[in-house]
Structure formats: C-alpha cells, structure tokens
C-alpha cells in the first residue's frame, strides 16, 4: 500500500504509523464531561468502506495526515495534512 504524503510524495505504508479513527474530537482539556472523554478514548467508528483516519509519516517527514481510505479495498481517496485541518470530526456526545 502506498500513501501519498503531501510533502514526500507516494511512500510505502512501512514508513507510516497508524493513529486510528480520525473522526474523534478531543474534549476541551478541562472538560468534566466524562462520557465524552470515554467516547473519545475508547469508541471508534469502524466502517466497511471509506474511513477517515489519521496516519503519521513517521519514517519520513513525521507529519500527521488525514487520510480517507476504503477499508474494503484499501483505496485511498484523499490525503491531507492533519495539522490545522478542521476536517470531519465527530463531536463526542455525552451529558456533563
């Protein structure tokens, strides 16, 4: 599998570290909404199809990337720097 790093170009998956479900939004640091925290830490979207996920190009420029990849075909439809991106996230629900 190749991931096209926006900085380094297409690179083998061996250079990357997977950081999981990219839809999760971390609660504010001081948030006391424990359900939201729990959802953030433990609950993952795990779709069969396009998946919005975070990868780090750890064996290259070390940037974190937001990748949309199909979990059935491994086809990658988009890659962007995760930094400063306000792409699709899932607000962690929960009563405070």
């Amino acid at each position, binding site marked *: 599998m190749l991931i096209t790093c926006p900085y380094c170009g297409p690179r083998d998956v*061996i*250079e990357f570290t997977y950081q999981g479900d990219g839809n999760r939004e971390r609660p504010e640091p001081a948030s006391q909404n424990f359900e939201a925290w729990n959802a953030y830490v433990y609950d993952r979207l795990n779709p069969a199809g396009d998946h919005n996920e975070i990868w780090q190009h750890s064996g290259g420029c070390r940037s974190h990337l937001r990748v949309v990849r199909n979990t059935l075909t491994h086809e990658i439809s988009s890659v962007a720097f995760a930094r400063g991106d306000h792409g699709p996230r899932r607000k962690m629900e929960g009563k405070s």
Partner: protein
Amino acid sequence: MVERLSPLEPDFHPGSHGNFEHGVDVILTETRPGSIVQLAAWPGEEKKLIAAIRAVTGLALPDGAGGGISSGGKSVFGFAPGKFTVADDAEGLAEAFAKAVGPAIGTVTDLSHGRTVIRIAGPKAEWVLAKFFAIDFALPAFPVGSGRSTAHHDVFAQIHRSGTDQFDIHVFRSFARSFWKALCHASEEVGYEVQ
C-alpha cells in the same frame, strides 16, 4: 579543540572491498561536517526562514517540498514542511543561526553531533541505495540538490542528493555504525572503495 570521534571508527577500513576486481562502482565516505543544524519555521514564517538561510549560508533554496542545494562546503535541503537541514564543513553554524532566526520565525536545533553523514558516490549508488530505501532514486524523481526523509526499518535517514551519482545520507549517530556496516555489505556486489 578536541577532535570529534567518528562512530564508524573500528569499522571504517579505507581501501577497495568486495567484488572490485573489475573496478569499484561505488565510493563510500563519511563527510564529517563541522555543523549540522535543523531549522524549523512556524506556519507562515517559512519565507523568512529561507531568507535567513540565505543570509547565513549564501545558499538560495529552490521552491518545493524537499528542495535543496549545496555549494562550497555548505548544503541545505527541506525534509519536512517548514523544516530544513543545513550542514557546513565549518563549525559554529548553530550559533550563527541562533542570531539570524528569532523566536518569531522558528527554532534552531544543533545536531552537529547527533547525525552522521555517509556519502555514497558512483555509477551504482542508486542500485545500492535501492536495496535499503523504498524511494525512487531515478534522477527525474529525485533531482540533484533535493532531500528526502525516509527510513530503512529502524534507521531513520535524510538523504541529500549532492550530485548526479552522489548521495549524502544523514543517520542518527547511534545507528551510524550499524548502517555503515550494512551499506558496505550491500556494496560488496558492485565493488566499493572506502575513502
């Protein structure tokens, strides 16, 4: 001043090795620059950092990811967004940049001791490096002067193409001897000379 010890020392054997009867196809050396500095700009400040690089080294960085240039014992190349590695045969680069790169532009990190630079040159340099790194070394894909960040398993490397058939590989000092031995081993097939 005390001389710096090379991490390759006990395994650095000048001379021809491997299958060299019909000539050596690569030459391996350690370039031992006096300074290696990492520069990193804050988002939006990259242009100012590039200007500072020009001011300090006289090197004009070309545009684009991984762009780089070398001249007169100095070299610079981008290895990550807003980040550059600068090397100089002379010492004191970190101090010079500390003055030129203010906190509003970015940061300066001295890696003069932390990285070891191994040079591989010769007609089979691409062939030997392709044994280690899953990147395209062909000239159109990796032009002279440019840099690449990559890794061979646990060994992280920044590779600077300093000539058509010449590459400078920056590796972590602690891994340098192991990588050097592997590079020598892989070069045996084509015949190599250590200089």
